[in-house]
C-alpha cells in the first residue's frame, strides 16, 4: 500500500463539534475532532457507547450537520450544505451499512439493490453486486426469507452497487454472531480491496480493528488515538 501522503484525501474534518440540546441540557457528542481519510483506506472507529463514533460517521455521511468546525468531502464543504445538496451527496458518493440492515421488507434482495441503482449515475447491476457478496443464488428472496448475515450482505451489496467513493458502516456485525459476522467482514474487506472504496467501520468490538489499515479511537467526543496498523489480518483470522 502506498503511504497516505501520496493519495488524495476523501474526507477532511477540522475541529468538528456537535452539540445536542434537549431542553436546557446540552450534550456534547463531539468536542473538536480533526480527521482525514484517504482513498482506498479502511479505517476502524473504536470507542465505547456514547463516545461519538456514530455522530462522526453521520456527519461524514451527510446525515447530520456539525455544530461547529468544517467538514469536506474532496473539495465540497459538507458543513453548512443544504438538505438538497446533502441528499445528492449521499445519492452519488456514499454507501451506508447499518447494524439492523435497513432493507425494505417489501422488496426482494435484487429489488432492494435496484432501489439504489435506479437513481445512481454509474451503478453496477444488482446481479453483479449480489455476486460480489456471494448471494447470487438468493436474489429473488424477500428479507424475511434471509438470515441476518445474508440480510447484512444484501445491505452491503446495496451500498456498493452505486460504486460509492466511501462506504460507511455503523456496527455492521453488531446484530450477528461471530461466524456470520466474519462473513460480513469478509465481504467488506473484498470490496475495499477490489474496488478501492474508502471504508469507515464503526465498532465497539476491539478484535475487529486488526483488519483495518488504520484505527481511530474515540472517547468522550475526542480522538484519543489514531494509529496505522503495522500488520493487517484477514477477516477469517478474527473471532470474538
Amino acid at each position: 500500500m502506498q503511504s497516505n501522503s501520496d493519495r488524495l484525501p476523501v474526507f477532511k474534518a477540522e475541529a468538528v463539534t456537535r452539540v445536542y440540546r434537549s431542553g436546557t441540557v446540552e450534550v456534547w457528542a463531539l468536542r473538536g475532532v480533526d480527521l482525514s481519510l484517504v482513498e482506498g483506506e479502511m479505517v476502524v472507529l473504536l470507542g465505547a457507547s456514547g463516545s461519538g463514533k456514530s455522530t462522526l460517521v453521520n456527519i461524514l455521511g451527510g446525515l447530520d450537520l456539525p455544530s461547529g468546525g468544517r467538514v469536506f468531502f474532496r473539495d465540497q464543504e459538507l458543513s453548512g450544505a443544504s438538505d438538497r445538496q446533502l441528499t445528492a451527496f449521499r445519492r452519488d458518493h456514499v454507501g451506508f451499512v447499518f447494524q439492523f440492515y435497513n432493507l425494505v421488507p417489501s422488496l426482494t434482495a435484487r429489488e432492494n439493490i435496484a432501489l439504489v441503482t435506479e437513481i445512481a449515475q454509474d451503478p453496477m447491476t444488482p446481479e453483479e453486486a449480489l455476486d460480489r457478496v456471494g448471494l447470487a443464488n438468493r436474489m429473488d428472496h424477500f428479507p424475511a426469507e434471509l438470515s441476518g448475515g445474508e440480510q447484512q450482505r444484501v445491505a452491503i451489496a446495496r451500498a456498493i452497487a452505486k460504486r460509492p467513493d466511501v462506504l460507511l458502516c455503523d456496527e455492521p456485525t453488531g446484530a450477528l454472531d461471530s461466524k456470520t459476522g466474519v462473513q460480513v467482514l469478509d465481504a467488506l474487506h473484498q470490496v475495499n480491496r477490489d474496488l478501492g472504496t474508502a471504508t469507515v467501520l464503526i465498532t465497539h468490538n476491539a478484535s475487529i480493528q486488526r483488519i483495518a489499515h488504520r484505527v481511530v479511537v474515540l472517547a468522550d467526543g475526542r480522538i484519543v488515538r489514531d494509529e496505522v496498523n503495522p500488520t493487517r489480518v484477514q477477516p477469517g483470522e478474527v473471532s470474538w
Partner: protein
Amino acid sequence: MRALDRKMLRDLRRIWAQALAIALVLGCGVMVLVAAQATQATLVATQAAYYERHRFADVFAGATRAPENIVQAARLIPGVAQAEGRISFQAILDIEGMAEPATGRILSLPAAGPGLNLPMVRLGRLPDPDRADEVALSEPFAETHGLTPGSRFRGILNGQLRDLTVTGWVLSPEFIYTMPPGAMMPDDRRHGVIWMSEAAAAAAMDMNGAVNDIALRLTRGADERAVIAALDRLLDPYGGTGAHGRDRQVSHAFLDGELSQLGAMATYLPPIFLIVAAFLVNMVLGRLIALERAQIGLMKALGYGRGEIARHYLLLAGLIGGIGVGLGWLFGWWMAGAMIGLYGDFFRFPFIIRDWGTQALAISAVLGLASVALGGLRAVWASLRLPPAEAMQPPAPPRFSRGLADMALARFRFRQTTMMIFRSVLRWPGRAAITLFGVAASVGVLVMSYFIFDAVDRLGDSVFQQANRQHVTLMLAQPQTDRATQDALSLPGVLHSEGAYVVPVRAVHGHRARLTALQGHYPDAELARLVDDAGRVVTPPRDGVVLPEMLARALDIRAGQSLTIEMLGAPRITLTLPVVEIIAQGMGQEAHIAAEALFAAMDSAPQVNLLHLAVRLDRMDALNAAIKTTPAVGGLLDWAEVRRQFDAALSDNLLTMVGIYTLIEVLIAIGVVYNAARIQLSERSYELASLRVLGFSRAEVGYVLVGEIMFLTLLAIPLGWLLGYWLALGLVGALSTDIFQIPFHITRRTFALAALAVFLAALGSVLMVRRRLDRVDLASALKARE
C-alpha cells in the same frame, strides 16, 4: 394518580393530533345522528301539540251550497265528535305596493266562535261579528305586506270591489302551508288566508243560512273511511266536492311530506355516517394501539397482568371515544337548535316542543364507545398474547411472497418505489380495504348529496322549461266557452293564449280511491304541455287517460286497466276509462285526457277554466292591473314567481342540509386519510428514513407515502361512484311522498365533483402528514427501531 393513568394521559397528549382526528370522525357521525333525530322528533312533537291544542279537524269537505242544518246531520254520523260548517271562497286582492293581484282564501268565523281549527291571534283581535268590513289575516301574508291592524286593502268578493280593514294577525294549524290555488310551493306574498265574520261572509257570497265547507273532528278509534263515505253521501245533493282526511288537506299533506322527508334523511343518512365513522375508528384505533406493542411487552415484564394492561388501553380508547361522542352531542345539539330554528320559522309554528332525541343520544354513545373499545381490545389482545421478551423486540420484518398479482406486476417493470407501494397494498389487503372503504364511502355519500341538486334541476327543468312555458296562468271563477281563449288575447300584453279545463274528480280503482283532478288538454298546446321527467312530450289520449306514476301507485292500477272517474263538478257524472299510459312525473298528481274526449263524455260543448298566457314581459304591470278589475278571473299564477318560490323553498331547507352533510363528509374523508397516513408514517418511518439515507430526495420518499394513499383513493373513487348510485337510488325511495317524488338522475358533474372534493381532501391530508417526513431525524430514526 397511578403511574399507569399518568402514562395514559401523557400517551393521549403525545398522540393528540391522531386522537383528535379519530374523535372528530366519530363526532361527525354522532353529530349528524343526534341533530337529525332531535330535529325530526322536535318537529313531530310540535306538530302534534299544535294540532291538539288548536283542534285541527280530521275530515274536510267542500260543497257548492248546503243548508246550515247539514252540520247537525254531520254531527250524527257515527264516529264524529264535533262538526263545524263555514263559508269559504277565493278572492282577488289588490294590495298597495303590489303590481300583480294577490289571491285570498276567505273563511267565515262561526258566530258562536270557532270550535275547530282554532285560529291563534298573534296580533290585534278577530273581526267584530257585526262589522262587515273587518278581517283578520294570516300572519305570514300580513307580515310580508306590513298590513298591521288598522291597515286597509281592497278585494273583489263575488265580483264586487270591497274595502277591508285589518283587525289582527292569525296563525292556524290548517294553514301551516298556505298555497295559492294551482301553485306547488307556499307563497306568502301572493296568497293569504282571510277570516271574516259569518254574517259578513254570508252577505258577500249570498250564502245566508248556507255553508260550503265542513270540518269534522272524529272520536278516538273512529273509522275515517266510513265517516268520509257518509259525509259524501250527505253532501252529494249539494254539490259535494269529495270529503277527505288530513292526508289530502293541502297544508297537512305538505307538512307531512316535508317531515317525512326530513325523517327519511334522519333515518337514512346519519346511520350511514355513524357506521362508517365507527368502523373507521375501530380500525384506526386498532393500528394505533398495535404500535404500542413494545410498551405492552414492557408492562408485562414489569409484572402487570393482562387485565390491567387491557384496562389501560381500553381507557385510552374510551377516552378518545368519549371525547368524540361528547363533541358529537355538543355539536349535534347546536346543529339541531339551528335546524329547528330554520324549520320552526319556515313552518311558523307558534311554539316549539323541544325533544332532545334521547334515543339518538343513547344509540350514538353505545355505538361510538363500542367501536373504539372493540378496535382497542382487538389490538391489545394481539400484543398481550406474545411473551414479554418477544413483544419488546421490534416486530419481525413482515413476510412478503410472490403471488400471482406480484408476477403480473413484475411484467410492468415499475420503479422500486412504485413496487413498494403495490407490495404494501397486496401484503395488507385488509388495511388497504379500510382506506378504500372509507374513501369510497365519502365519495358515495357526496354523490348522494349532490344528486339532490341534479334531481331538483331536472325537476325544475321539466316543470318550468318543458311542461309550463306560459308566463301566466289565469284561473277562471266559472268555466266559460272556449271563446274565452280568443278573448284573452285582448288583455294587455298577451301574445298567445291557450285554454285548458280542469275538474276535481274522485278516481276509484277497486277499493282504492283518490281525490284528484282530471285535466282536459286541447290539441297542439305550445305553452302548457304534458311532459314526463325525461322531458318527453306526451300526447293526451282520446281513448282513455294518462296517469302519473304516483297516482297509479296509490290506486294500484296498471296500464290497460279501467279507472272509474267520478266528477265532483257539474255535470256530476261517472266515467269508466282505460288507463292508456303511466308516466314518470315527480310532481304529477292529476289524470290527463284529450279535451275532445272529455267533453264528448260530458256531453257538453268545449269549455275552459284555465287560460295559459304568453305575455310581453314589459306589459306585465298592465296585465296585472287589468286582472285586478276582471271579476271573471278567480286567480293568477305568475310562473316566474312560482319558480322563485320553488328555488327559495329548496335552498332554505334541502340545500342547507346537503351543505352540512357535504361538509361533514369531507371532514370524515380528511379524518380517514390523515389517520391512515399518520399510521403509515409511524409503521414505516424506519423504512422511509432508510430511503432518505440511501440518497432519495424528500419528494421521492414522500412519493412512497403519498403514492400508496392516493393510489387507494383513485381506486376508491369508482367504487364510491357505484356506492353513491345505490345510495341515491335508496334516497329516492326514502324521500318519495304521496305528493312528490324526486326524479332519479345523476349528472357526470355530480360524479366529478364528489370525486374531486374527496381527492383534494385526501391529497391535502396526506400532504399534511408528508410534511412530518421532513422533520424525521435520519440518524435517530435508524437507531430506534420503533
